[in-house]
């Protein structure tokens, strides 16, 4: 009984209060946070009640003022049809009262901060909303900071997160559908979409895939993302994820579906276009010239970050004739006395860079000084001076590393592509580099996200790519992206000042 998760179909056993309480106790055996409070009405001692709740999950003030106080102060009439019904209708101050004898609802209520009220002589119970626990305050998400634009970020409470989305899109067209994941965790989740804009095929497909999930727990949206993504083995994400309500709102308005999961600030959105990783949230809050420049730089940074080490190795070890003579001379001078082949040098430094990055992300902030000294001095300066690596390698790795961090959401993919390119280039020279690039394009253009091509309309003519390589001014973006929705009119006319 104790290890059972599912109470579908189970009911409270009888009308006797003691038996019912005992039954619930047996369900929650070995759980010391469970509080059981017996009461009886001061006006009629035959009226016995029992409150059961999980300590720490409830708001105690709410419980005292809105549940216990009215219960003890109410003068129960002699005649009534059903005690629980009377209490639900006339006594409780609580905003949400459910009358049920379903064990599933009772158990879920208790573990989710509700209080269960049992009355002697009744075969059903009242589940009262007394939820109350501390959540993190609303802060700006660390990973998606902006200089200009809204600074609210999601926190771990789904309802708070939903309220942030609703506050941005105030229309009944915005739909919220609750779901539950995880046999053990019973994590609440909510599908959000704009009914008139959303692509119904995508929505159905998403619901279908979500229905297949059978796992004991989903602690983050990543669990769900990995379980339902299009190409399970692909290194490219096919589902978007963000911590910013304004981003989710923007994506909903373009016809995407969002899934908010309780317990994590990460909200996933589908369908996903690769370009979303290059679209900074700030792009839409900044002047479009500047935003476009930033976006072009980010795309360029991805190409550089994935290609530069490979190109260096190809040029320095296969195609010296492409290098201008002074550069060739200075590379050759720098290489003099370095014991390892170029490819080993660059692999070594790339791995060291990734280690530094990983350390920086994991270590306590107070030790930051150490990292910068070790990173900059010991590994950069000293390695060159000691002729373990040559100076151009440091520059190449530095540039590749920094440009890689310019598109943080593609970070892992960038690293993977960088090493693959490097391996190809070190065996085949520039041919290898080109094969790598071609393979990358084939991979990316062959991928779908919920029936929508991952690369979106990036190959279409410029007229249709107003939000791909650049961020066009708002008065130009009259329609929504056509691969995302059939309801395309965003503005009836571009309301530019004439």
């Amino acid at each position, binding site marked *: 009984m104790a290890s059972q998760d599912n109470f579908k179909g189970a009911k409270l056993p009888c009308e006797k209060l003691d038996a019912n309480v005992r039954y619930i106790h047996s369900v929650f055996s070995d759980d010391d946070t469970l509080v059981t409070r017996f009461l009886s009405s001061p006006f009629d001692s035959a009226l016995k009640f029992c409150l059961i709740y999980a300590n720490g999950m409830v708001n105690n003030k709410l419980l005292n003022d809105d549940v216990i106080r009215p219960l003890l102060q109410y003068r129960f009439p002699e005649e009534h049809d059903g005690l629980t019904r009377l209490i639900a209708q006339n006594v409780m101050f609580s905003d949400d009262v459910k009358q049920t004898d379903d064990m599933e609802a009772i158990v879920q209520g208790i573990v989710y901060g509700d209080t269960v009220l049992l009355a002697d002589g009744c075969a059903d119970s009242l589940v009262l909303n007394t939820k109350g626990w501390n959540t993190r305050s609303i802060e700006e998400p660390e990973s998606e900071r902006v200089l200009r634009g809204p600074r609210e970020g999601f926190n771990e409470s789904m309802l708070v997160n939903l309220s942030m989305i609703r506050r941005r899109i105030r229309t009944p067209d915005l739909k919220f559908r609750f779901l539950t994941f995880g046999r053990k965790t019973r994590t609440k989740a909510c599908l959000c979409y704009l009914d008139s804009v959303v692509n119904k095929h995508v929505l159905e497909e998403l619901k279908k895939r979500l229905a297949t999930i059978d796992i004991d727990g989903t602690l983050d949206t990543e669990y769900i993302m990995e379980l339902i993504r299009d190409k399970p083995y692909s290194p490219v994400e096919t589902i978007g994820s963000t911590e910013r309500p304004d981003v989710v709102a923007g994506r909903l308005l373009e016809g995407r579906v969002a899934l908010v999961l309780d317990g994590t600030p990460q909200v996933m959105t589908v369908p996903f276009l690769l370009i979303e990783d290059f679209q900074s949230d700030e792009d839409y809050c900044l002047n479009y010239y500047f935003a476009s420049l930033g976006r072009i730089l980010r795309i360029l940074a991805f190409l550089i970050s994935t290609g530069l080490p490979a190109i260096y190795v190809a040029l320095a*070890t*296969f195609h010296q004739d492409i290098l201008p003579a002074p550069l060739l*001379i200075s590379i050759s001078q*720098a290489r003099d*006395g370095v014991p390892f082949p170029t490819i080993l040098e660059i692999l070594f430094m790339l791995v060291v860079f990734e280690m530094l990055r990983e350390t920086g992300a994991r270590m306590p902030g107070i030790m930051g000084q150490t990292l910068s000294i070790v990173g900059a001095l010991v590994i950069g300066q000293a390695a060159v001076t000691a002729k373990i690596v040559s100076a151009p390698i440091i520059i190449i790795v530095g540039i590749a590393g920094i440009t890689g961090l310019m598109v943080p959401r593609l970070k892992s993919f960038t690293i993977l592509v960088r090493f693959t390119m490097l391996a190809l280039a070190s065996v085949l020279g520039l041919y290898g580099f080109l094969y790598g690039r071609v393979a990358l394009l084939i991979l990316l253009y062959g991928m779908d996200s919920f029936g929508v091509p991952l690369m979106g309309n990036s190959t279409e003519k410029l007229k249709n790519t107003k939000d791909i390589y650049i961020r066009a001014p708002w008065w130009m973006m009259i329609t929504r992206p056509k691969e995302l929705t059939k309801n395309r009119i965003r503005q009836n006319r571009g309301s530019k000042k004439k």
Partner: protein
Amino acid sequence: MRAFKIFTAAALAVSLVFLTGCWDYQEVEDMYIVGGIAIDKGTQGHQYRVTAEVLDLSSGGSEKQSPIKGKVLESEGETVSEAIAALSHRANKTLYYGDCKMVIFSRDIAADGLSGVLDWMNRDPQPRFTIQAYVSQEQTAGEILLKGSPNGQPITLLISKAMEKAASYSGKSQAVELYQLDNFLWGEGQSATLPDIRFHRYEDGVEPELYGTAVFQGDRYIGELDDQESFYFLFITDNNSGGIFLTGEKPDDKDISLKIRKSSTNVEPVISGNNIRMKIKIRMETSYDEECSRKNLLKNKGIKTIEQYAEKSLVKRAGQTVDTVQKKYGSDIFGFGRKIYEKDPDLWKKIKPEWNRHFRDLKCDISAEVVITDTGFAFPKGYE
């Protein structure tokens, strides 16, 4: 089916490597960058002797990057290619000719004909078509590389750097690159010339300098033009891009220097029946650079007069140069034949076999237009 797919993909990937990949993996420090080569006659019974200057980039273990030093290697062979191969063997490193700046021929190699010597450079993938070619006026070509360097710096880099600027500084030397040389040798109607290189001798050593022009007949070296002749030779072939022109004609016993800013030459054959004359029009824009006189010639004579002086002497000296080449060498280094070929290919076909004789007797009408665009001096009050 799945296994078949995987097998196909793997087979394609493997053939990618073996059929199209390139396998010339080469670390930069395992090769010597050749700055330039010199080709001489062999001395130990071999046909050719090749001297190469390579860039020695090793720092000798010190932490600082030391300045680049030149290092000279020599070897001999029956063919240029054999000598080059022997050079690599001697160096114990791959020699890399992709950045080879120059090839210097000795006079006796050049006199024997360049076609055979050039073949390796034209055929091998590494040396580029932009290698500059020179003729050494010293005993051998190799000694330019051997003795030339003033302080251990690679001499080839110094020479090629000097050559880049020579045309605009002095207007007396013009680089000839391999493809241009090929055009001279195998194209129509212009004999080859190469810039000369020789030692400038000091009390305590030598330094290479560019001086004069080597004249070829066919692919064989037949003589030299000196500094002044080279200057006017470059004028007539429209290759001048700078330098100082002295007006001469002695307006007041002193020369006036005009700095050439822009010059262009138009050569046009005038054909009437069997009689061919070359019309050469030189136009030169100059600035008034210097007058060695206390009499303020510019003010007294006026710009027009000085321009006329300059025009007169330009016509005279250019004429003398053409004359010298015609009488002394009879080799059409000015490319008059090419001009005729361009204008009337049929006529060219007829006279081509006899061209050398025709060239000797060819009449030239030279005219010049000199413009002084600025005088470059703010006259103080009372300056007379």
